[in-house]
């Protein structure tokens, strides 16, 4: 799993780590039962305070996304069904960011929806299903 952080991003670092784990689940690069890097490894590779990583893991555990097995490390929870919860959740997060960006530029929701459809391929009958952000 590769986690990327941006220090220019408005989200706190621990939230970015949580979102990266969720995005890994949605993309399928992370699957149930997969081990996550240890707090030490991840904080060292991201150059962040280990507490930031612990905070992200603890919050993910509260959300039922990961599971801490004492003495063994942190794992993706066995029962996670990314399509039921993580995908819509991630889609909402991406939508929130897109809306904020639109509003910053003085655009309304309708402008954004129209443009999304046009960019997607000009088919006005295809409704956004929330996963259009998929990378290249």
């Amino acid at each position: 799993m590769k986690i990327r952080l941006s220090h220019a991003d408005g989200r706190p670092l621990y939230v970015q780590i949580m979102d990266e784990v969720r995005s890994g689940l949605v993309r399928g690069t992370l699957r149930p039962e997969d081990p996550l890097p240890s707090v030490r490894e991840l904080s060292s590779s991201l150059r962040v305070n280990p507490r930031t990583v612990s905070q992200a893991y603890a919050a993910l555990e509260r959300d039922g996304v990961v599971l801490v097995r004492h003495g063994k490390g942190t794992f993706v929870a066995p029962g996670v069904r990314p399509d039921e919860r993580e995908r819509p959740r991630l889609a909402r997060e991406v939508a929130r960011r897109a809306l904020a960006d639109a509003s910053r530029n003085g655009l309304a929701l309708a402008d954004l929806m129209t443009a999304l459809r046009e960019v997607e391929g000009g088919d006005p009958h295809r409704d956004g299903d929330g996963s259009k952000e998929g990378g290249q």
Partner: protein
Amino acid sequence: MTDIARAALPIDLGGGPFAVTTRGLAKRFGAVRALDGLDLQVPEGAVYVLVGPNGAGKSTLIRTLMGLVRYQAGAVSVLGRDPADRGAKVRADIGYVPEDYRFGYAWMTVGRWLEHQAVYHPSWDAEYARQLGKRYEIEPGRKCHTLSKGQSRRVQLLAALAHRPPLLLLDEPTDGLDHVVRDETLSILSEHLADSPTTVVISTHRVYEVEPLVDHVGVLSEGRLLGQLPRDELRGSLLRYWADVPEGWSGPGELGGRVVKRSGAARAIEWTVWGDRDVVTRGLSEAGAAVREVAPLSVDEAAVALLSETSREAS
């Protein structure tokens, strides 16, 4: 507006436990007040960054905590001891990187100098020192006076970390380091914090270089703290608001927050405000502003906003 404008940012971190505290700490050098009634609180296990302009008192404060500067008034507790009368004991428990990168025993080889450090710190971990020496590519046979600034810094960082002290006092720790070594240092510090319970106080002009490690911030100006608070609280409550406003807009009468910095053009404002995000947004909206974006500040930006506010008030 002027009344709230004089209120300070939070400065009391509550009940502790604290690794370091000062109360009413004062130090003068002749007519210059270097520290002027300073109340520092560094929670145990925190990574606390001290920011402030040149001459704000950062190095004097750190040297006072080390027992290298005698203070004239107030009280100091470093790991439960007063460095003024237990200086040597306090220093044995501290990993210190001084602002000055020159060595006191410049004629020694690096290896000899490190042995010398090991004697003063009974908890010196020789294996860890060896690993750090390898990562930092330290050459033990070199004479200290032949080292560049960056090479000296690496030796000083090694010496500060190798005895796994409960407290690290780092005065401009990244000064003189190139990009690669600075990045390696952040990685080393992250691992160090994961492995050893450590409280860290960092004084720096380059907050952005250490910001991902920081969880507490103290803004120092003219020997006093303008604020001292958790990084998350600063991120959550000191925010920049971008809004479109009508021609000739004069702002809300009561905002429910404290405006730290105002800028912007005729019909678009950019305000930095300390206060509850929802309350401030509502205050701006009710006064006729269309808030387009609200975003947190980096520690650097926050320090600049707070310090420029102070200098404006003083002028």
